[in-house]
């Protein structure tokens, strides 16, 4: 990894350096704006420590190759943007079903379809949660700065190894292309988590039998465990089954693995929420404008606060419910889409507070003033609830 110190670094570069610090030695990708700098950095850096950089024929191949590499025992990553992420949905599902640790970076740009390749948006938030078919539990980190591109990429690797699933780092064009101060800590100060290995000998091992934390230990290919890995519904031996009991047991566990460990995974940041009447919920690049908006609003006498989900899935459900129950009247969700996380916030308030949306269609982030205007209008009762 890089020499410890303070650097002036672009978000995408910091992401690649975070992956390298986390122990990533396999990267497969396909060029796409605004994520290509991650590929370029990996390609440049990998010879130094005998890593494998593969430029694949498309994003279907990129994600499938990292799943293969993960089963070969490597820490593996791919990076893309919306159009490529749509192609990855198929094997994101395979990774979740086969419990394969890896990291997918999605640098969001304007959509739908080819959209606005060089400009910011946050339209893929629900795709990370619901984009692949079937019921899944997922973990998604949303960085707001180049520093977090470094830190959260390491965390994403750790979580993927600990809970055995593909973890998404959901950046956006603005955070990825922003150049800012990044502190690279000393190697010994970085926490690195490795996958659990089976303690049983191969003949007694049930490769998909979970421990108490609902995560099965993982034997890599070539370690003598003759693991069978299938995207079909499978039992604890890993053998396919069309039995509804097996389906129920497996899918419930895959969801519970995240749901019941949410306290360990969940991360969010709060700012001046204690006495807040109105809380702005913002993530990614918009968080930066929202924080300033809250400060301006406070100067104007509005009791404003800020909640930033750092893991957008799992979502800080209980915290929003608590805040709604304990005096916050209004939530304003500022996001660069036509309303995605706003539905989650509205659900979590349980009707105990009003939920409003400050939408934006992509191309640029909100200005702080725009968010302040919205807060003032809400305080004065001038704008309706987001659904009306």
């Amino acid at each position, binding site marked *: 990894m890089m020499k410890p110190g303070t650097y002036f670094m672009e978000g995408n570069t910091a992401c690649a350096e975070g992956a390298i610090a986390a122990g990533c030695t*396999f990267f*497969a990708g396909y060029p796409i704006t605004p994520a290509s700098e991650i590929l370029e950095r990996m390609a440049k850096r*990998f*010879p*130094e420590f*005998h890593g*494998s950089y*593969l430029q*694949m*024929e*498309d994003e*279907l*191949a*990129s994600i*499938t*190759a*990292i*799943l*293969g*590499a*993960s*089963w*070969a*025992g*490597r820490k*593996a990553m791919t990076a893309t943007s919306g159009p490529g992420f749509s192609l990855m949905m*198929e*094997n994101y*599902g*395979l990774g979740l079903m086969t419990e394969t640790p890896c990291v997918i970076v999605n640098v969001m740009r304007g959509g739908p379809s080819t959209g606005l390749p060089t400009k910011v948006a946050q339209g893929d938030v629900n795709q990370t949660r619901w984009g692949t078919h079937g019921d899944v539990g997922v973990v998604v980190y949303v960085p707001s700065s180049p520093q977090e591109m470094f830190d959260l990429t390491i965390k994403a690797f750790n979580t993927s190894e600990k809970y055995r699933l593909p973890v998404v780092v959901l950046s956006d064009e603005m955070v990825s292309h922003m150049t800012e101060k990044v502190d690279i800590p000393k190697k010994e100060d970085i926490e690195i988590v490795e996958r659990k290995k089976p303690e049983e000998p191969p003949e007694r091992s049930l490769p998909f039998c979970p421990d108490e934390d609902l995560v099965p230990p993982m034997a*890599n*290919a*070539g370690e*003598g*465990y*003759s*693991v*069978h*890995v*299938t*995207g*079909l519904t499978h039992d604890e031996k890993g*053998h*396919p*089954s*069309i*039995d*509804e009991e097996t389906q129920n047991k497996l899918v419930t566990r895959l969801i519970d693995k995240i749901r019941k460990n949410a306290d360990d995974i969940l991360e969010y940041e709060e700012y001046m929420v204690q006495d807040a009447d109105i809380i702005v919920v913002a993530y990614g690049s918009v968080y930066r404008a929202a924080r300033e908006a809250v400060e301006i609003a406070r100067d104007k006498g509005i009791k404003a606060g800020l909640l930033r989900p750092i893991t957008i899935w799992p979502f800080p459900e209980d915290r929003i419910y608590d805040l709604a129950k304990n005096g916050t009247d209004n939530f304003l969700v500022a996001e660069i889409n036509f309303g995605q996380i706003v539905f989650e916030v509205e659900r979590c308030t349980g009707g105990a507070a009003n939920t409003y949306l400050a939408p934006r269609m992509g191309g640029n982030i909100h200005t702080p003033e725009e968010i302040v205007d919205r807060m003032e209008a809400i305080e004065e009762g001038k704008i309706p609830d987001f659904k009306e």
Partner: protein
Amino acid sequence: MSIRKSRDWFSPDYMEQRSKKESAYGLHPLDCYLRKDRIPHIWCPGCGLGVILNSYLRALKNSDISPKETAVVSGIGCTGRTAGYLDVDSFHVTHGRAIPFATGLKIGNRELVTTVFSGDGDLFAIGGNHFIHAARRNVDFNVICVNNFNYGMTGGQAAPTTPKKAQTSTTPWGGFEQPFNLPGVAAGSGAVYVARWTAYHVEKMIESMEEALNKKGFCFIEVLSPCPTGYGRKVGLKTGMETMKYYKENSKIKDGADPTKVALDPDDPECEIIVGKFVDKEAPTYQDERGEIFDQARNELGVK
């Protein structure tokens, strides 16, 4: 009944006898490669997959490759089920994606003797792009493509290999698309070893598979296989046996034939099926080439 458990098929007496025999001799000389609790397999009577899998396992055994160092990756379909019967590190991935998965697996751990075992639809329709690129890169693994001329698992639909005029469930009036000539595609994309056999050519097939297992680089073997259920009965080859006879009578071994000229032509009055080893050449693999460039890079960077 929701699932067919293998044990329900046999009487308790038979099972007792079987387990006695098994402990005395083992049930099959290739038992060490099989997940015995997954047998019997799901393949139809008359299917060629049993013969082809058997040939592959014999090739492994003849080459002295242990289950521990073997990895098999399959996609989706009848042939896609192969991985699930093998007591090796085996991966049954999404439709068409066996090759990119194997690419990651092999480059992730070069010690694994990796084989992609999949069908014609999986490898050349939905997975066609991955095939040509893996061949171009010359990644060091083998691809065994069992070509049964149709999508058997889903009920006999037309595939990119279905001959013109053949009737399938999605070409009820006869097919009219030009089919792929698989050895031509493989050779044109850069495969270092290309062969075609039928399920009838057991000895030749084993020999080819052994050669591929011991060769560095991207090796491709096409095996034509009877599919009486999905395809044969609609084209006048009602049983596996009839298809095998057809293969026996119409195949012509032409080692070294130009792979672009071995297309299966239904208009050929002699219905000739050209089989044999068409390509066997040396070329640096993906890992050789990368190693060289990366060594240079490390020299320039002054790291080891």
